[in-house]
């Protein structure tokens, strides 16, 4: 995902028929709404990721029913904290996006308000990055907790699926973190000429990771 967002930022414009101006269609509200290319791409990617996790989910359900060897265990408490972290990161990302897109295109201007919005927006972005990283660290710590209880990948099908689901989610989230880091880098250019293209895509992806985690958390709580 990161590369795709980089791609969109790199091109710096919205493609489309020659009659629409680059990037202008949305923020000024004129002409019909056309999603940015990166946003289309993210939605398609989300479609695929949903399908993958659906496959893992059905594998878990079938496996649980195939044999009476499923041993339930209690989820580490830390997961609740991690969940709150991730939810908070979605909030901060939303706030950051609001600030930054409100001054998109005006970044080069030196107005006080614009500069303020910009720095506030960037702060929220850094916050999101920190919270995302904190989530990953928290997941690793949760794994360590399980390990001390003697629950490893191959111990029991229930623990197997726990590790598989959390690892797959973390791997996809790392992709999102990469995209976020890239967005931050682009927007921190000294001359403040970075565009916020790709911001919508990043947000969609991040919120999706959030929602996916909620789904997985509930699933694991119910079945593990």
């Amino acid at each position, binding site marked *: 995902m990161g590369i795709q967002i980089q791609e969109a930022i790199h091109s710096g414009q919205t493609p489309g028929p020659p009659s629409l*101006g680059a990037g202008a269609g949305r923020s000024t509200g004129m002409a019909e709404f056309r999603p940015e290319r990166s946003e289309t791409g993210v939605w398609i990617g989300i479609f695929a990721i949903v*399908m993958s996790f659906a496959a893992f989910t059905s594998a878990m359900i079938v496996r649980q029913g195939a044999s009476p060897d499923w041993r339930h265990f209690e989820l580490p408490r830390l997961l609740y904290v991690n969940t709150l972290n991730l939810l908070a990161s979605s909030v901060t990302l939303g706030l950051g996006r609001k600030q930054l897109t409100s001054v998109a295109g005006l970044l080069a201007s030196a107005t006080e308000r614009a500069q303020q919005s910009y720095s506030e927006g960037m702060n929220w972005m850094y916050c999101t990055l920190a919270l995302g990283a904190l989530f990953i660290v928290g997941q690793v710590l949760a794994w360590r907790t399980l390990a001390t209880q003697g629950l490893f990948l191959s111990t029991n099908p229930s623990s197997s699926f726990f590790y598989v689901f959390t690892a797959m989610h973390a791997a996809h989230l790392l992709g999102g973190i990469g995209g976020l880091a890239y967005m931050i880098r682009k927007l921190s250019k000294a001359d403040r000429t970075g565009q916020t293209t790709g911001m919508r895509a990043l947000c969609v992806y991040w919120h999706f990771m959030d929602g996916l985690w909620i789904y997985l958390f509930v699933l694991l709580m119910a079945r593990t």
Partner: protein
Amino acid sequence: MHDVSSKRIAHLHTAPTTFIRKYVFSLDHKVIGKQYYGLALVAVFVGMVLSWLLRIHLAYPGWHIPFLSKLSAAGAPDGVMTPEYYLSLLTMHGTLMVFFVLTNAPFAAFGNYFLPIQIGAEDMAFPRFNMMSFWTTFLAFVVMMASFFVADGPPISGWTAYAPLSAVGGDAGPGLALGQDLWAISIAIFCIGSLLGALNFIATTLDLRTKGMSLARMPYSTWAWFVTSVIALLAFAVLLPACILLILDRVAGTSFFIPGGLILSDKLQPHSGGSPLLWQHLFWFFGHPEVYIAILPSIGIIATILPVFTRKPLLGPRAFIGSMVAIGFLSYMVWGHHMFVSGMNPFSANLFSVPTLVITIPATILTLLLTASIYGGKMRFDTPALFCLGFISVFISGGISGFYLAQPSLDTYLHATYFVVAHFHFVMAVASLFGVFAGTYFWFPKMFGRMMNETLGKWHFWLTFLGVYCVFMPMHYLGLVGNVRRYSAFVDDYLAPLIPVHKFITIAALLTGAAQLIFFGNLIWSRFRGPIAPENPWEATSLEWTTTSPPPFDNFGGNHPVVKNGPNEYGVGGTDGNDYVMQNAAPKSA
């Protein structure tokens, strides 16, 4: 800031200057398309040689093939294949052909090259993802081929890699240790490459169509690539988790697919509780849509090419597109027909059989529309046209045998026999490949600026058309006798009388294979010495024929075409040379 008022939109990436950027790590979809085609060519050549080796072993088991003992001393001591090596080569034949040929050539290769051009775009939506998708696929190919060179050779579990045979590791037999690991890793990597590719195709089709190019005006090939991408996106998204779970069972001691109490090589296996049927469900949930991924692009290509040579529009455009979409949708509901006798609940056989039979309806509609489109046409029998006609014939043959296998009550006899082998070879190996051939002869001039040799093309067609019927039609009869598939030798009592049939098939296969060398030769010769091709040698209407042969870096030289017609304005009054209207030209008044 970019100048938003300019009509000309700057290309997504600047024209490459270095050799590496131009021909190796290229962002240009045309180069990437050719790279996929080249990869498919290598894979099909290897796959074809493997098929020759398999067929020779079946018909003439005593023959010594010196090259084999060089490839694998253990697998073919003295040039005679061991039973396990037969299965290794069989596995690689299927894997290479299904993944690296049939998913690559009609879909990734031609799709990458022509999708953007046919919709009037300058490149794919995500050129860097596109480049990544090719090199990922290439890496998958390298990993797959590496299995030939490890000690025990490639895996022996077939391209379907059923668990627990594929999951327990080396105790189950030769090739099932490192060879199977490489297979699973390769396929997982392949999934990622395909997912990236599918994502690109979908985003490009949705977002980058030029002005006037509504979905209804897209050529059939574009529609086919679009529908196929959606199928691929969802199918490979299921195969990847399946491969991950398989790899974990193999290396991490998990038991997703392996039940307890198994004794292999006199050892009690350290797994328990897993479900072999789970692998089958996951695999076929991918596997059935995969075969439609293999055939749909070829159907689209044939539907694009046929009208050019009949000089009249395809009959029933909406029904045609609707049928392609219906097939895509239904393809997800039928996977259990590979598992009628697998041990899954027999009642579900009825549930899977119905959509399997229903899918024959859109398939029949497609075939009827293609055939009826020839009626009343002014046919030009150039090589692409011959392959279109051949396609229809072999698609009928292959589709008809599907009717038998879709019924559980017949599958109880025909499952795992040569009847199945006949069926899938006709639809995939032959029909899908005919689409690739047609596409190659048709689009070669556009891609390379030169025409392919017509005489060689016609020889290739006739020898192949006759050859494939000689190879695969007899397999139906073998299946009716009950000749089981994936046997490395025919030692059962009832199989002895069938050996002459197998000999006939082998000779036909070798001859048909030799005929493909005409094609390879034609490709290479024409690439460098073929006559220079004009912009539109076939008098076709879609957008790729409005630009130079080959197209410039940004496809249209900076001018985005504006589309005014659908892709089938053929036979619109006027005589030869003037009986068509390009998609970007003003429509003719009635």
